[in-house]
């Protein structure tokens, strides 16, 4: 058995764009808001528990990835300021493969990959770019820097 750091686990799953339960998603969020629509079959006629509830639910926000352009580290709960209103970082940290701060965030639906936003990090507005996760897969960088 080899000790493995939780920090390593966290940077690995963050770079892979994978949600952390309790932080990026919990009982109050739906797949629409947490980047998980790929796990839910809304296209075929197949019924499933919760289908009706989901179809009747709209959400003003969706999940995106963020890459920090300035120096610093984005963290959970930092406010994201966009052209369409404010959002929030759900998970943030340092991505070692990219050598930059990366984050998952919940932002207004109109905010799409490619958009420039700012993140309030300890009182300073730092520049970030919206991207579609994953940031890294199989060791390869998957976003345009």
């Amino acid at each position: 058995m080899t000790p493995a750091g939780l920090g390593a686990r966290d940077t690995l799953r963050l770079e892979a764009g994978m949600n952390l339960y309790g932080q990026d998603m919990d009982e109050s969020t739906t797949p629409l808001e947490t980047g998980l629509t790929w796990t839910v079959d809304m296209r075929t006629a197949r019924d499933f528990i919760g289908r009706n509830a989901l179809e009747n639910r709209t959400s003003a926000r969706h999940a995106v990835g963020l890459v920090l352009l300035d120096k610093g580290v984005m963290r959970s709960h930092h406010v994201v300021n966009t052209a369409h209103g404010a959002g929030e970082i759900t998970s943030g940290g340092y991505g070692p493969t990219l050598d930059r701060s990366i984050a998952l965030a919940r932002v207004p639906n109109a905010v799409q990959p490619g958009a420039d936003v700012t993140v309030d990090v300890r009182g300073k507005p730092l520049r970030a770019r919206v991207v579609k996760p994953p940031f890294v897969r199989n060791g390869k960088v998957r976003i345009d820097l």
Partner: protein
Amino acid sequence: MTTPADLKYTASHEWVKQDADGTVTVGITDHAQELLGDLVFVETPAVGRKLKQGEECAVVESVKAAADVYAPVSGVVTAVNTELTDAPEKINQDSYSAWLFKLKIDTPAEVAALLDASAYQAVADADSH
């Protein structure tokens, strides 16, 4: 953990080196960098800023946490270590040569009252994580 005998220390894990000309050099201790882990970001104070002893003046941030650095003594910032902007890991490699900033001090008594190496060692030992 190393604690050089020729430096002074604070209970908040800063080290202070007295230079010949009434200035001091400040950094964070080996114990501090060990607790923080791999540093990814360092923010130093602006040159020319006046600091009071105990005032928050810099930030060191690692993958797991951000920590404030406090002015160990009062003075004016005369220089900052710009190498740390692109290579914050130098602090992990050698926290006593990777200094953060230099201060021109106004109250030498404050320096004399700082902890010596053995007093700081006791603080670090008690600070078990």
